[in-house]
């Protein structure tokens, strides 16, 4: 057993953490798929999945089984290496994003001083996977979807960054745990009170970055059939699906840590407050998706360049000014 002792404890910590993250993501994707379909069903006054298990609770498992069981199919003239790299690239960076996530006072896989930066940096890889998927599948719809993704994600990263910077300036840290600790237990001590505009901008950007309705242009069904993942079937599609939901959890988690007081809340602080807030945000994501029509592509960019970026810049300048004065 001596060779075990030679392994640094840090490494064991990380490995256990990664395994825990994978389990967390896997379970949450299943739960979210179920919640989304149930939510959609009830909003539309129908039961949603109902037949597999009591109230359809096993439906996501059945769907996952179906997706795994399907043949992996590469279209003719597609670039097979890039084609299959894309879904893998979509999922794995998302797992890394959970590393600095402050679930609770001690429940963090690895405290990173530049945690916020790490999340923003690795989130960018998701764009690459979408672009590769659209490009490599040799499909015109996929190509259009990929082109949309790139301009959408690049554009929306700017106001997102500006909104996040406000908090970083205010708290003087890029460490998510530190930012959470800088907030109080009661809702009026959270950053959302001091930075409401940044919160709104962050939320809008979160919808756009995760490609959720009303900003789901890369996969706009009525125009591009399925956009970048038109040619994917089976688990190839399943990976994109997983990445989308995992991204939602990440964005909600970051939003909770930055603006909603993280694990802090009235009463006893802990993981449960973090999860409650994340679930509330996820419910908002689902609710919005089943309410609005999709915006048009040029409108999407107009909202960004004409509203969000100027507002975010002004907000940042105002924050900096106030920080300097007081």
């Amino acid at each position: 057993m001596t060779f075990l002792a030679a392994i640094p404890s840090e490494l064991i910590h990380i490995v256990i953490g990664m395994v825990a993250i994978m389990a967390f993501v896997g379970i949450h994707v299943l739960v979210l798929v179920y919640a989304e379909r149930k939510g959609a069903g009830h909003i539309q006054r129908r039961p949603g999945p109902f037949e597999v298990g009591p109230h359809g609770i096993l439906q996501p498992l059945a769907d996952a089984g179906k997706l795994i069981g399907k043949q992996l199919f590469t279209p003719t003239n597609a670039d097979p290496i890039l084609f299959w790299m894309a879904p893998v690239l979509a999922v794995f960076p998302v797992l890394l994003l959970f590393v600095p996530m402050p679930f609770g006072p001690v429940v963090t896989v690895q405290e990173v001083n530049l945690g916020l930066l790490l999340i923003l940096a690795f989130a960018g890889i998701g764009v690459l996977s979408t672009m590769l998927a659209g490009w490599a599948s040799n499909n015109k719809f996929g190509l259009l979807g990929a082109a949309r993704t790139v301009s959408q994600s690049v554009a929306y990263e700017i106001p997102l960054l500006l909104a996040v910077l406000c908090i970083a300036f205010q708290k003087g840290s890029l460490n998510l745990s530190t930012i959470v600790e800088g907030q109080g237990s009661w809702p009026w001590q959270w950053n959302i009170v001091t930075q409401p505009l940044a919160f709104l901008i962050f939320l809008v950007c979160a919808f756009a970055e995760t490609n959720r309705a009303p900003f789901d242009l890369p996969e706009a069904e009525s125009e591009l059939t399925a956009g970048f993942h038109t040619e994917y079937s089976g688990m190839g599609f399943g990976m994109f699906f997983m990445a989308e939901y995992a991204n939602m959890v990440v964005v909600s988690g970051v939003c909770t840590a930055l603006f909603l007081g993280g694990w802090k809340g009235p009463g006893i602080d802990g993981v449960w407050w973090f999860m409650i807030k994340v679930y509330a945000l996820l419910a908002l994501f689902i609710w919005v998706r089943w309410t609005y029509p999709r915006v048009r592509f040029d409108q999407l960019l107009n909202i960004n360049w004409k509203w969000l970026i100027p507002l975010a810049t002004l907000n940042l300048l105002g924050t900096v000014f106030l920080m300097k004065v007081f």
Partner: protein
Amino acid sequence: MHYEQLGVTEGDFYNRNFEKGAREDTMILNLGPQHPATHGVLRVIVELDGEYVIRAEPVLGYLHRMHEKMGEVKTLSQFIPNTGRIDYGHALGWNWAFVGAVERLAGFEVPERAQYIRVITTEINRITSHLLWWGAFTLDLGAITPIMYAFDDREHLLDILQMPTGSRLTHSSFRIGGVCTDLSEKFIETVRDFIPKMRERLPMYRDLVTDNVILRKRLEGVGVMDADMCRRYGVTGPVARGSGLAYDVRQAEHFPIYEGLDWQVAVRTEGDSMARYLVRMDEMEQSLNIIEQALAALPAGPVLMKNAPKVLWKAPKGESYFAVEGARGKIGVHLVSNGGEFAYKVKLRSPCFSNLSAYAEAARGTILADAVAILGSLDLVIPEIDR
């Protein structure tokens, strides 16, 4: 320039003969025949510059069922079920157009009660058709929930419509010289109950979809068709009325029942997709008014004329044309008879066919998402285009 000569073997006849424009950096994209936005087997070939549509060309014929030819090999009464299947959305409009043409040819006098029943059921059918369009159109624009609310109401209306017509989709209850079944007391009661309920639902539709800023920004100023363009292409129905042409067959052809009722032709002058949308929303309200008044004025009497023609009845020699305002525009039937039990020729004038012909011009220069929105705003029913 033929693509075969250039050695291009990809694609089918239409792709190869859809000539690329003067520019080299464009992409030709097939929307359909299997595409979520075409609601059926319509195919649109578009030439794209990035996301901008340089040209769009509809390809028809994927659902051609030879209804006109069938009219020549079936007796006149036997053709009635066919008319219910030309446009599944507004089946009774086609029913009425065909039996109207036969009645005009033979000079039949339809009992007044039957005429009222025709007005009531056709208007209910118009509402179901508009509800179907409303749901599908919002689906085109990316909103998934409204179609479920629309179908909730539509199912109730279909329950009602099932009572006199016996079916839920391809109604064929009009007969030469009247209708096949009388309205029951229960029908009248249910419709009376339903009209206020439907009036309460329409504001909800307005708040959820019509007033939504995303939808308004998607539709306002998109796909503008002016009155002149509508005239050039023979566009009728809500599409023409959205461009300021106050042409409604119900009013223009002086239908006896409609003349006595208090209702307005819904007209908007903007000519964009939003105007077409609003015209249809207004029409639903007007249809409710018509149904309410027609029910109140429903006279007693027979629903089928005394000497209604039997199956092997021979129509007199001659020609007749009869037009009805369908949910999508002017439905016209031109009937030529040489005195036999079969028609010599049945010409079906389909509003969707004419409306679609304006699409190529309306979609030019728009963004791909707008092209889809314009296609949806024309309210196309593919079986009606091909017939």
